[in-house]
């Protein structure tokens, strides 16, 4: 007797679900494709909400708690949407030696948020990274994907203020 679970319908007509589904199909809906699939959900939607986690769990036939456990283990996965802009301060050793700690502190103070949080107006998320690998540019900050190097906090804040 086959107890195979039927694949669930896509959660909505949003085309992005097809991308997610394609990742799972490419991996034969195997349970070990969970992390790959979560990456594709986050690439498509920017974060992982409960609905998408449930969809992935049912599609890959994995327990809900296991999926949630994996999603919360890896720090790259976000369970909340990010702000319109993201400022990632590298806290690798080279950047730390060159003052990344002070950068983070100054940003916390200026925007009243902790690393990992987003300002109330959803404008800016402050994040930290374990070495973005731009040690030659220490201290390095990634603002919306662009690496800014050898920064002091006032220049950085001026850059951030310019963002819409």
């Amino acid at each position, binding site marked *: 007797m086959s107890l195979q679970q039927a694949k669930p319908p896509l959660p909505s007509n949003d085309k992005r679900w097809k991308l997610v589904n394609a990742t799972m199909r490419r991996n034969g809906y195997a349970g070990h494709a969970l992390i790959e699939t979560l990456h594709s959900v986050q690439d498509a939607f920017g974060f992982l909400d409960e609905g998408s986690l449930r969809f992935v769990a049912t599609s890959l036939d994995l327990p809900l708690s296991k999926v949630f456990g994996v999603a919360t283990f890896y720090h790259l996965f976000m369970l909340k949407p990010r702000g319109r802009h993201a400022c990632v301060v590298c806290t690798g*050793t*080279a950047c730390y030696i060159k003052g990344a700690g002070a950068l983070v502190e100054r940003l916390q103070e200026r925007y009243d948020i902790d690393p990992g949080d987003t300002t109330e107006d959803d404008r800016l998320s402050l994040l930290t990274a*374990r070495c973005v690998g731009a040690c*030659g*540019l220490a201290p390095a900050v990634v603002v919306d994907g662009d690496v800014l190097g050898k920064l002091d906090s006032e220049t950085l804040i001026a850059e951030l203020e310019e963002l819409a």
Partner: protein
Amino acid sequence: MNLDDLAELAEQFRAADPVVEREVRVCVAASCQSSGASPVFDALVASLGDGKPACKVKGVGCMGLCSAGPLVSVADKDGDLEGSVLYRDVAPEDAEDIVASLDGPPLERLRCATDHPFFARQQKIVLEHAGIIDPNSFKGYVAVGGYAALIQALSEMTPTDVLREVTASGLRGRGGGGYPTGLKWSTVAKMPGAQKYVICNADEGDPGAFMDRAILESDPHRVLEGMAIAAYAIGASKAYVYIRAEYPLAVERLQTAIRKAKRAGFLGNKIGDTQFSLEVEIRLGAGAFVCGEETALMASIEGLRGQPRPRPPYPAESGLWGHPTLINNVETFANIAPIIREGGEWFASIGTENSKGTKVFALAGTIANTGLIEVPMGTSLRDIIESIGGGIPGGKSFKAVQTGGPSGGCIPEQHLDIAVDYDSLKTLGTMMGSGGMIVMDESSCMVDVARYFMEFCMTESCGKCIPCRTGTQQMHAILDKLAKAQATSADLALLEELCEVVQSTSLCGLGQTAPNPVLSTLRYFRDEYEMKLGGG
């Protein structure tokens, strides 16, 4: 396919562009990209136009001196970096001048001397093509002799021959532990079972280390070639590259390389018309340092929480999905092709008694020349820091160099003359690690450095075993008290005791080595700790 066929193919690729005599090479690895290499590349292409058909702008991998990026070198078609004219801190506005100088003397205002010790003292094996070939070009790799080692292995050597060469080379794992590579390969090869796996560990997580990223961004095919040779030697038909998602450029280049190698028949089914097949798949990490530990890495490939499990059984016996698995790091695989090409004995002639070959280091921190270097094992720390690295800038004095990342330690001035290899670093209470070297000047507080690394281990602890999960937290709390001059001598004694317990009882390497930065700074800079004692 045999070596002659491949040589013919390489000749074809070299001859494909007969008019080109000189190349304007722009570093397009991540660090130079961060300093604006892409606009420089575009400006050079635009400036060159169709005016000089004998010259060509080419994107290449890392040239090493990252702090001076964007780097551009002008070289003869088959020329190396040392023989080239190197320009530093190039801006798009400089493109016109560089192009204009192609017919005349070099542009002195941007020139960066290549006879400087930074370049002259290096010996490149792993990075032999970095900064010379286009990492996105399969043909470019074959043209410089790429995949010859694989074809040689497949057409002229038995798996046992390959194992013999790798063993003879004395190569040790470049990921940190320094386990003999030949022994590891032979163990997996001897394991019974039809299904075996090769895994390339590209989860370079040590803060301040970017060797593997640079290798993958500069010369991805070389890593694939090493993996394919390993798979042939141990009898695997499936391989994974586990790579950090934080390295999008490296991921992209690796994907391109896999696709092109497969299309050309150097990966996939029946490689080089032999019975040997290998599928290579990329698996992305998701921000967990602990996944650099091999059992955690395998859990992550299996789609699980990246938590280590007790060893034994080792991956060689029971790895991915319970099958024998070979895990090596990027740099280890990058050493394989030259070992097959030149022979294990040749490789063993480089380096020290127990550490053979070269090692790639990422130099960072308060040092004049920040970047990527490759030196023979046994080069002294003083050479690396003062000569190659150019010493401490700003008239400050050297205090310590940190090696081995969060698992390593700090080496003070009095030990700078030590010859760097796996064993010498261990005697100093630190380790080779993956090759990050962070230089600190007199303004760095060593208690603060220890606290920084403990904070790292605390947040990166997977939470599975008690000593690491809660011990790192308690040690961090004491270090924090110390840094704030609120700790007592009883706190310091407790810190040392916790170091011992966490080191001896933690489940995996992360916890077992988490106390190292504390222990090593206590060993060499105890006075700084004692000066911080307060709190009555």
